[in-house]
């Protein structure tokens, strides 16, 4: 039981033994954290399952190390093992783990507790669930303050408000009395950060701190972390998002399946990624610049590679209008006590969608873009205005009249899983989606299903997913199945509502490539809804920017994103983090030597 007094250790930081310096690649003044060969595995009924295989890095004051990886890369577990919270059934081996110069391998659970929050702050993603949803953020802060230190109530209340102010929460006094769900995404994330830095910890670990946030908010939060780093806090940033990392990190560790594939100074790693996986990651980030280019090596072999310049939309001169929205208005009864008047989720939205083009609708949460999508799909009826699909009235008509046209208008949702009947196998799901005639004839049906799988790049032969349940598929596979189902009825229009938002960046790249290829092959019209300007910039021919249910700006993507006119659009564009662009030709084309 080593109960360490870390405050005492701060002084001795200066004279560090050379070994430790060696361990820290850079001559950082005094490594606050040294990790060598961290290995984590989980005991499962079927043996130990390693999730981290040898992670090493060191971190000095005012430094930021980023650990980048996709789901299952082990980055989060690594982060948690640094505060001894890998959870039940986990086995952690580490050759060396020094926190503030003290050997943390032999820490008692009690000592860990004194360490957490006081010397190491931890910020999780999505404050909506990472802060106790039933508590006012003030109380949450109060808990943080109470845990280490015996300040009286009143003082704690003061410092709570002070903390909120520090992380840039306006009107902190009243905000402290609100619950996470009563705060905007940005504010609540800041509140979460505030709880983590209540005791000015020397080290802050941020695990996907901005993932759930809108672009504009994301920028603010990152700025906050940056400020902390500037104040001398050592920051460990866990993220899947290279653009986020590029903004903050001094050094980057890229992980994949528990292995460290590449690590080094941020500029170098992003500029000249060496490992093919890193190259893929870098190349996979969509944006205006990547238009018409494949994002994934797989996609590179597809038609898009064949005609790289063929920007979508360069079809016939005046392609027919397939979908039109005229002055749509949709209001919802005001939620709860606040918001007296009915909230206008969609307010006078009009647009046209031409065959073979992609219309991107971009906006932040609550901007009404998804409501617009539902109106277009005829899932809900507009109070005013109307939707016209392929020239036929679509709004305020009995479902029976829409039905004949339904097959021509398909949808792919953000979370495909919920759109699959859990009892059905992929084969049945797809078969069921086929036109009646095909559906009825077993042979034709089987063939058609195979073709669909093939179209979306899923194995139709052996290793086929036909017999599997959606639940057992990976996110990418699920989304492919969803797309296949959308294609089953040979639609003219596909509404994609945040269709790629839930995917890892490399998977997202593949799906985006797939979508664009399909569009070219079949002259599909996409109504593409996303909160991610990068994605929108990559896919859409024209974009429609929404805020508070209104269309603030619309026009050709290039124009809108390069020369935004409306102030909101400008803010939005400004908030885009510059995606890291490799100086050498995009990966996938040639082997990295």
């Amino acid at each position, binding site marked *: 039981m080593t109960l360490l007094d870390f405050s005492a250790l701060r002084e001795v930081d200066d004279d560090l033994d050379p070994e430790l310096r060696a361990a820290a690649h850079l001559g950082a003044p005094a490594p606050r954290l040294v990790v060598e060969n961290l290995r984590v595995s989980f005991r499962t009924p079927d043996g130990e399952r390693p999730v981290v295989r040898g992670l090493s890095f060191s971190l000095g004051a005012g430094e930021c190390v980023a650990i980048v990886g996709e789901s299952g890369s082990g980055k989060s577990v690594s982060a948690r093992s640094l*505060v001894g*919270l890998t959870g*039940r059934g986990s086995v952690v081996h580490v050759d060396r783990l020094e926190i503030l110069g003290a050997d943390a391998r032999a820490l008692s659970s009690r000592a860990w*507790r*004194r*360490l*957490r*929050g*006081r010397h190491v*702050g*931890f910020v*999780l*993603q*999505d404050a909506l*669930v*990472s*802060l*106790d*949803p*039933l*508590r006012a953020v003030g109380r949450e802060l109060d*808990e*943080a303050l109470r*845990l*280490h230190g015996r300040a009286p109530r009143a003082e704690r209340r003061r410092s709570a408000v002070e903390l909120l102010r520090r992380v840039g929460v306006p009107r902190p006094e009243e905000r402290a009395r609100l*619950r996470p*769900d009563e705060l905007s995404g940005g504010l609540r994330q800041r509140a*979460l950060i505030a*709880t*983590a830095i*209540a005791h000015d910890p020397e080290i802050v670990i941020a695990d996907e701190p901005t993932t759930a946030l809108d672009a504009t908010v994301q920028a603010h939060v990152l700025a906050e972390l940056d400020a902390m780093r500037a104040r001398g806090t050592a920051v460990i940033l866990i993220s899947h998002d290279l653009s986020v990392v590029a903004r903050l990190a001094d050094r980057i560790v890229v992980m994949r399946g528990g292995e460290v594939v590449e690590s080094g100074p941020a500029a170098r790693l992003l500029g000249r990624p060496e490992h093919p996986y890193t190259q893929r990651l870098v190349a996979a980030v969509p944006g205006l610049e990547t238009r018409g280019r494949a994002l994934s090596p797989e996609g590179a072999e597809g038609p898009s590679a064949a005609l790289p310049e063929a920007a979508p939309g360069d079809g016939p001169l005046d392609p027919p209008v397939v979908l039109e929205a005229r002055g749509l208005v949709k209001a919802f009864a005001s*939620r*709860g*006590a*606040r918001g007296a008047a009915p909230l206008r989720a969609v307010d006078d939205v009009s647009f046209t969608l031409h065959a073979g083009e992609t219309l991107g609708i971009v906006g932040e949460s609550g901007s009404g873009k998804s409501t617009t999508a539902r109106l277009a799909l005829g899932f809900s009826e507009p109070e005013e205005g109307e939707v016209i699909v392929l020239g036929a009235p679509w709004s305020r008509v009995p479902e029976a009249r829409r039905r004949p046209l339904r097959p021509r208008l398909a949808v792919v949702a953000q979370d495909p899983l919920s759109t699959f009947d859990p009892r059905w196998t992929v084969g049945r799901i797809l078969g069921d989606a086929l036109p009646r005639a095909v559906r009825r004839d077993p042979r034709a049906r089987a063939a058609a299903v195979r073709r669909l799988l093939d179209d979306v790049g899923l194995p139709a032969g052996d290793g086929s997913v036909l017999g599997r349940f959606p639940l057992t598929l990976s996110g990418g596979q699920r989304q492919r199945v969803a797309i296949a189902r959308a294609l089953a009825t040979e639609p003219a229009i596909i509404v994609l509502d945040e269709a790629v938002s839930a995917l890892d960046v490399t998977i997202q790249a593949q799906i985006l490539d797939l979508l664009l290829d399909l569009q070219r092959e079949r002259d599909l019209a996409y109504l593409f809804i996303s909160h991610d300007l990068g994605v929108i910039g990559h896919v859409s021919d024209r974009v429609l920017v929404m805020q508070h249910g209104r269309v603030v700006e619309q026009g050709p993507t290039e124009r809108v994103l390069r020369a935004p006119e409306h102030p909101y659009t400008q803010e939005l564009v400004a908030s885009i983090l510059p995606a890291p662009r490799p100086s050498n030709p995009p990966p996938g084309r040639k082997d990295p030597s």
Partner: protein
Amino acid sequence: MTRSSWARPAVRIVGNAVGVLVGAATAAFLAQTALPGDRATAILNIRAGQAELRTPEELAPITAEFGLDRPLWQQYADYLLGLVRGDLGTSYLQFRPVGAIIGEQLGATVVLAITAIAIAWMLMVVWIVATGGRGPRLTALGSLVDVTTAALPAYWLGIILLLVFALGLGWFPVLGDGTPLSLVLPALTLAIPLAGFLAQATRTEFERALEQPFALSARMRGQSDLGVRLGHVLRHASLPAISLSGWALGATLSGAVVVESIFSRPGIGQVLVSAVSSQDLPVVVGVVVLTAAFYVAANLLVDLASALVDPRQRAA
């Protein structure tokens, strides 16, 4: 919180309450009018302690006394009117207002029910916090106990408790004299299965909440395990159990029927059983309506409680 936001639900709730009550009254009334045999005969026989047919001459006065000869709808209308005036009618056998009869017994049952629910909650909370999400073995043990206790029928548990602790060890009195001590066994009889039942609902939620990010970030703030369990997780986990408690009150009333007969306690249960077995229509209907009222009241409380525990519900 503006008034309007409270007013709307309030109106709705009261509306439901009235609906339930009237429905209950009607159902009960119709049920009772469907009873077999001639009520006048029954009354006469019960007074005489003999079971035999009666001549019209014998029956005439009784029929007149209780207006049993009037058409049904009239009896029903009078009944509902009386209900509005808070008059539940008069017992056939005791010649007394039903309100009074129930009134004297209500206290005992309410005390029993409330105590039972309180004890059930205490047992459940301690048990869950102690065993919830503590790894395979404890969880296994925990849920086994949940399931087992939840499966114990009140009548059996009651007799066993009586046998062991009152008759055997003599720790508790055999009779339901008003003393707190005499309340323990009956309350436990109702509480133990209830606790198991609530625990089943809570455990799942508790283990889910334990794995929620907010619990993790509390730990990352340096909060202790117990602190997380009591301070954060329990509150979340208790929500389903709270909404079950409204139903639970009904269950304890059901249980009271049995428990009161085992521990020979006075109370609504006894009144009901004897009234049903002696076809004392007004009393039975009275009890039924009362139970419905109980249910309504309980649910108001439940709504209130869960709104307290989960402030988000106030907004919605």
